[in-house]
């Protein structure tokens, strides 16, 4: 018998708070502030205090990947931001190549 629990799709109408993003990554809110500072995650109103920040699924994906890079390779968040940008660009280009049936 399957247990039914409350299911939410993380989206624009149901975003994550900074504390939730931090908890999902096993980190604290201060770490999320650093992610915002280096631009790994995006906030719309930079002047708002962290408790008003809202994050999307993409932000969670980037934050989890940044956490792994930090832990496994000991990279700083600035370098993690660059690695993530390059990684996502590679994935985007590979998808374009596939979409054109080239590979």
């Amino acid at each position, binding site marked *: 018998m399957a247990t039914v*629990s409350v*299911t939410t*799709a993380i989206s624009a109408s149901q975003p994550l708070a900074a504390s939730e993003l931090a*908890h999902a990554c*096993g*980190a604290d809110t201060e770490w999320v502030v650093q992610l915002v500072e280096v631009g790994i995650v995006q906030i719309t109103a930079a002047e708002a205090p962290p408790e008003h920040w809202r994050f999307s699924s993409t932000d969670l994906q980037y934050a989890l990947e940044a956490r*792994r890079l930090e832990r*496994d*390779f000991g990279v700083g968040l600035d370098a993690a931001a660059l690695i993530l940008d390059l990684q996502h660009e590679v994935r985007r280009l590979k998808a374009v190549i596939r979409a054109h*049936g080239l590979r």
Partner: protein
Amino acid sequence: MEFKDYYSALGIDRTASDDEVRKAYRKLARKYHPDVSKEPDAEKRMRDINEANDVLRDKEKRAAYDALADRVARGGHPEGDFQPPPGWDAGFEFHRGPNQGPADHAEFSEFFSSLFGEAERRGAARRNYRARGEDHHAAIEIALEDALNGAEREITLRAQELDAQGRPTFKTRTLSVKIPPGVHPGQFIRLAGQGMPGHGGEPAGDLYLEVRIAPHRLYRIEERDLYMTLPVTPAEAALGAQVKVPVPTGGVVEVTVPRNARSGLKLRLKGRGLAGKQPGDLYLLLEIALPPADSEAARKAYEQLAQASASFNPRHHLGV
């Protein structure tokens, strides 16, 4: 359950220093990183080395693992039938370091979870630690139709409990997941309270499922847009036509192929991609399919076409 040799996974000796563990891991992680690796089993290898690294770079886990490996070697456990002996971890205490997210654990093997999952929790309990349970992460693969229309899917997770002898055992539990219409690849679905149990009476963590969409027979996904190859005849491409096209939400629509359409032309059906605040589009990539010249009538028709377009040279740009 199979006993895992974490040292051979990283290609190192048991005497390897912390620095050697780190170097071996980083080298292999670059080799098998799914974004750059050419190896066919890169994803699985990456999981294995991540798991080995998680144990061997942690002094306490490594010492306990070494002690267990010795006991297994002495006891001669047959491979593939491994159960950790009761109290195998007595005297060791595991805890998560400040840089140790819970993020990867859901992908690790049963062997890893049975040794370290419960032990981490007991370690936390011994220290009178109070905190909400860790969030867990897993992935769910769904069909494109389910992503577009929404669906209800069941997933099975392994949860760990201690039996009467205090040995970790696995219970599988089935969760019913409501997938709302319009989810896209990379989006997370959160199941409240389905993560790790809380410490010291605090609530459980949540389970995050990352949505993956299974490859589809007709449509390819790129961000929120969908792509489909639309074959047309030379006559349809040259003269223009109304053709029927299946759409992913079900049903068929009529599409106008413009006159003198060339192969590779992209037709856009606005808003027929993945739903969302800014819905994606459905792109049709035109592909001209030649009718075979396998009858007298067809051969004649091709000959007439050749005569009618004698001045047309498709190799003009090659200078021949």
